[in-house]
């Protein structure tokens, strides 16, 4: 495509309004034509000026931050990302966990898990409070001897938050708290690893849910666990 032809199409290219083949031709020409690049930049600036500024929401930022932090953690640990379906544990262990009975030595059979994200706490706490006020949200507390150790908030859209209280005792650094979702089929699926001294965290869960469990595990999450249960929330 010659220069004059491209010049005719630059404004349409800036609007993303060319057909694919034409856009490719223009893109090729732009690599070698400074004049056309300059004209394109002017058109893009004009178009951007048409868009008014608007407030940006915290919830979307939480999602962006979560994805970035997930990537960082995966890169650092070289842990393979795990599909949710891979994280189900055997039904036998599930029923034990839902029932709340302690059965030392029962294997949970879980693969390595993604970490929950600890974004700046004030933002997450505010997001959790907002989420708790939405119609259809689940709000429930993990309790130990009648004292709340962590609050769970899960919206109908699947945005989840864990808000530990001061009553949740810090663990040694070689241990971590781990959060589980129990679905309607009584499968127990990890929602993530909270760390040894958890701060407010976010998670995502879009399936059905009948309860939650909080356990103590080895740092980084478990592949197989004896199931050191801290608390269970059932029939939410």
């Amino acid at each position, binding site marked *: 495509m010659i220069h004059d032809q491209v010049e*005719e*199409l630059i*404004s*349409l290219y*800036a*609007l*993303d*309004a*060319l*057909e694919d083949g034409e856009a490719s031709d223009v893109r090729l020409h732009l690599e070698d034509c400074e004049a056309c*690049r*300059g004209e394109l*930049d*002017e*058109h*893009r*600036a*004009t*178009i*951007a*000026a*048409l*868009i*008014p*500024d*608007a*407030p*940006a*929401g915290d919830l*979307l*930022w939480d*999602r*962006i*931050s979560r*994805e*970035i932090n997930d*990537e960082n953690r995966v890169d650092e640990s070289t842990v393979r990302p795990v599909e949710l379906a891979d994280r189900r544990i055997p039904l036998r262990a599930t029923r034990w966990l839902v029932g709340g009975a302690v059965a030392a030595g029962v294997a949970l059979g879980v693969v390595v898990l993604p970490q929950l994200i600890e974004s700046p706490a004030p933002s997450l706490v505010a997001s959790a409070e907002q989420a708790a006020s939405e119609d259809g949200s689940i709000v429930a507390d993990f309790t130990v001897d009648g004292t709340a150790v962590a609050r769970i908030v899960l919206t109908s859209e699947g945005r989840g938050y864990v808000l530990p209280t001061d009553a949740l005792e810090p663990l040694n650094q070689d241990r971590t708290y781990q959060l589980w979702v129990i679905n309607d089929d009584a499968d127990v699926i990890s929602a993530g690893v909270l760390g040894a001294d958890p701060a407010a965290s976010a998670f995502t869960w879009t399936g059905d849910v009948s309860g939650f469990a909080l356990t103590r595990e080895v740092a980084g999450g478990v592949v197989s666990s004896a199931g050191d249960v801290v608390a269970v929330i059932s029939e939410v």
Partner: protein
Amino acid sequence: MISTQAGDGTSDEDALITSIVQGDQTALRALYDKYGGAMQAVATKVLRDVNLAEDVVQDVFVNFWRDPGSFDSKRGSVRTFLVMLTHRRAVDMVRSEVARKRREERRPDRDYYDVAKEVETRDLGTAVRSALDSLAPPERDAIALAYFGGLSYVQVAHHLGAPEGTVKSRIRTGMKKLSTSLTGYQP
């Protein structure tokens, strides 16, 4: 013609970009606070689906975090760059089969998309409104359908029942008028 250089915020934005290159997430958050709303507005206009629009904005920011060097300050402001990436990504989604179907489900009648209303009801500054008013209605409709409708000029021509060459000409003329009217304008 409108300036392609960033305005007074250039040095601040240079510092933010430098911080992002160094892995400072608070700098990315600052950019999000400044421009995330505009990006979401563009994506929502094109996709007519808040969830898909959020996916697009998330995708743009995560990719920018991965590769902040893709931004060249000599070619314009960060805002222009992010809006451009957002629009392109949204258009890609519109033209993909899945998004197209979801979009069509929300638009049982093809005439539902009222271009004039789309432009006039937006919260625009005086300069932008004046610039848009300087366009002949066929020019404004062609540009709005292409940009906010995510349509190619061929699709715009089909939609308006006008020859393709005519639509191309309307868009070119309209864009020239806009550039002239918005010289030096910063939103």
